[in-house]
């Protein structure tokens, strides 16, 4: 049941992404609303898949590569749905939904089930640590999407091009505000995740070495947030630079993750 629901969610994400792509390419008033509804269905199916996982395996899907990626994809999609419905900026999904779809598809390909060490990581502190971290990374993804769209819209407006990007993308000010708010929400979440993770390992596990890939990734991610917010401290004058840092910062986190995962031993456990 978990696999079927997860697969349905991935298919619906792909459909929502395709609908947004078509909305972008041609002017249609109804398609964005249809895309948002489809995204809502995808999020519901994904949520049901995660609930089914908990029922099936008796633990939250927070341990092991595939379950963690699945939760991350779910939170990114949830963020996209949030900005589409509450912030009325559905076009942000043009970047976020494919990211969520790709992450969920990667989880699907890896097989959404616990790995061998899952039992080691049970406990409320661990759950809190991972959930906070995932929310932080989802916020970074939202900031990345807003930043990327800001840069593209800025280029169109400055270059006096009035094509699909000009028409479909939200205004610069809106993108700047979403990017800033996502960072402001994400930094405390990731900071709390790191603190809880540190306290949890100190209390219940052997203290980790400073070079542990998980610590390295956590610190890099935290620095990305700090730098991105610091750059934006200059107000709207720095909006473009802030958008650029959000995009580069997200890329740094993804690349760091890949490099650390490739370089790490196969039994580091958890997200890695």
């Amino acid at each position, binding site marked *: 049941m978990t696999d079927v629901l997860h697969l349905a969610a991935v298919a619906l994400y792909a459909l929502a992404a395709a609908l947004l792509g078509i909305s972008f390419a041609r002017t249609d*008033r109804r398609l964005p609303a249809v895309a948002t509804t489809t995204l809502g269905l995808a999020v519901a199916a994904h949520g049901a898949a995660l609930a089914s996982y908990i029922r099936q395996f008796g633990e939250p899907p927070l341990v092991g590569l595939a379950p963690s990626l699945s939760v991350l994809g779910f939170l990114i999609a949830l963020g996209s749905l949030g900005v589409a419905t509450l912030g009325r900026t559905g076009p942000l999904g043009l970047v976020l939904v494919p990211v969520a779809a790709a992450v969920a598809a990667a989880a699907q390909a890896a097989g959404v089930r616990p790995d061998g060490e899952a039992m080691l990581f049970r406990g409320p502190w661990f759950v809190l640590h991972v959930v906070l971290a995932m929310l932080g990374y989802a916020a970074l993804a939202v900031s990345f999407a807003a930043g990327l769209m800001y840069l593209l819209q800025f280029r169109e407006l400055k270059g006096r091009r*009035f094509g699909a990007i000009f028409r479909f993308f939200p*205004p610069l*000010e809106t993108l700047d505000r979403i990017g800033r708010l996502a960072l402001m929400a994400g930094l405390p979440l990731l900071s709390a995740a790191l603190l809880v993770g540190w306290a949890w390992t100190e209390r219940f596990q052997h203290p980790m070495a400073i070079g542990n890939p998980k610590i390295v990734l956590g610190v890099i991610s935290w620095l990305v947030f700090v730098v991105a917010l610091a750059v934006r401290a200059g107000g709207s*004058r720095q909006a473009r630079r802030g958008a650029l840092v959000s995009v580069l910062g997200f890329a740094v986190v993804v690349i760091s993750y890949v490099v650390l995962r490739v370089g790490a031993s196969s039994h580091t456990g958890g997200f890695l």
Partner: protein
Amino acid sequence: MPLAVVGVSHRTAPIELRERFAFGRAELPGALISLVEETGAETVVLSTCNRTEVYLAAPEGVDGTDAARAVLAKRVGMSAEAAARHLYLHRDRGAAEHLFRVSSGLDSMILGEPQIQGQVRDAYAVARETGCSEGPVVGPALNRLFQTALNVGGRVRSETGLGIGAASVSSAAVDLSKKIFGSLKGRRALVLGAGEMSETTLECLRAEGVRTAIVANRTWERARELAERWGGEAVRWEQFGDALAGVDIVICSTAAPHPVLTRERLRAALPNGAKRPLCIIDIALPRDVEPAVGDEPNVFLYDIDDLQAIVSGNLDRRRAELPAAEGIVGTGVEEFWTWYSSLAVVPTIRALRDHGERVRQAEVERALRSLQHLSPDDQLAIHALTRSLLNKLLHSPTVRLRQAAGNGRGTGVLDTVRYLFELEPDGSPHED
């Protein structure tokens, strides 16, 4: 019940003539009452700067169109023949289709312009509020016609891209500003030049919530006049550089033969660069702003060609939506016409049922006189039985009559029913 529209629009008359035909808002109730008295029909008058139209739904056998033409001709002081050269007439289905196209913006001078929907709504509202000695000037036919027209117009706007994007230079300027700032509420604008284009653009910006307008013009009086009209402030032409630092949007539309806003002047006004985005819209010819100004960080510069490119692109996209919009209009016409045609059969259906009921009652009473031994319950049962028989017998003819009316065969079928059951043309029973 014939339906018709008599009118004049941008397609048939120049503006000098259209403005003579037009009715002001205050004149409309009087005009409606006078038209109802002249035509004897339900009446709605739609009067905008691009059209004046009189919609009529007259009783069977009455044609109010000549009277409506005469009223319109008299209004502009022309003979009926001279006015007829500019007036058009659509009847029945054509009249409904015309109104649906009008409310959808398909008949507008600027394809898909949104104001017409509100103007149709206002015209209908005025007619609903107006009564004459014989009752309201709008009856069931025009009520349904205008409600359907508003519904069709709303569907065209929500389901197609016909109304998307700016279709005039001033609204393109607003669109551009909104793509930078999002909402324009509370933004500050500087207007260089106090000409007609500046004022039109300023009007659009104020409608979007631009808070402060600073007007600078070489003629101080003209600047002050424009500023007063729009609740802004006027500054001396030599001092407009000082105002640059505090504004978000600059509209330039002077008649100067050379650029009035150069890169050096901007840098002098903003020595540390623009702290926030500055949108400069230059609608002057020759241009008021040196192109190099657009290279400054945080400055977005657009000229008249950019605005026209936006308008032209939007109009092309609107034209591509025409088939979808026409489809919605066609569906609306079909639905309305099916309902409207069925109105003609209602009196005949009613007369047919009355006729049947009279026959039933007469026959039952005659039978009951020879069946006086029956209890009251039994007598009621006989009434129920005959009533049920009558309803079952008349069900199919009623349904078929409505269907025939809807598919255009109503007149022939109605004549047959009237002949067979000896009903008068208005549906009442024939009396020998």
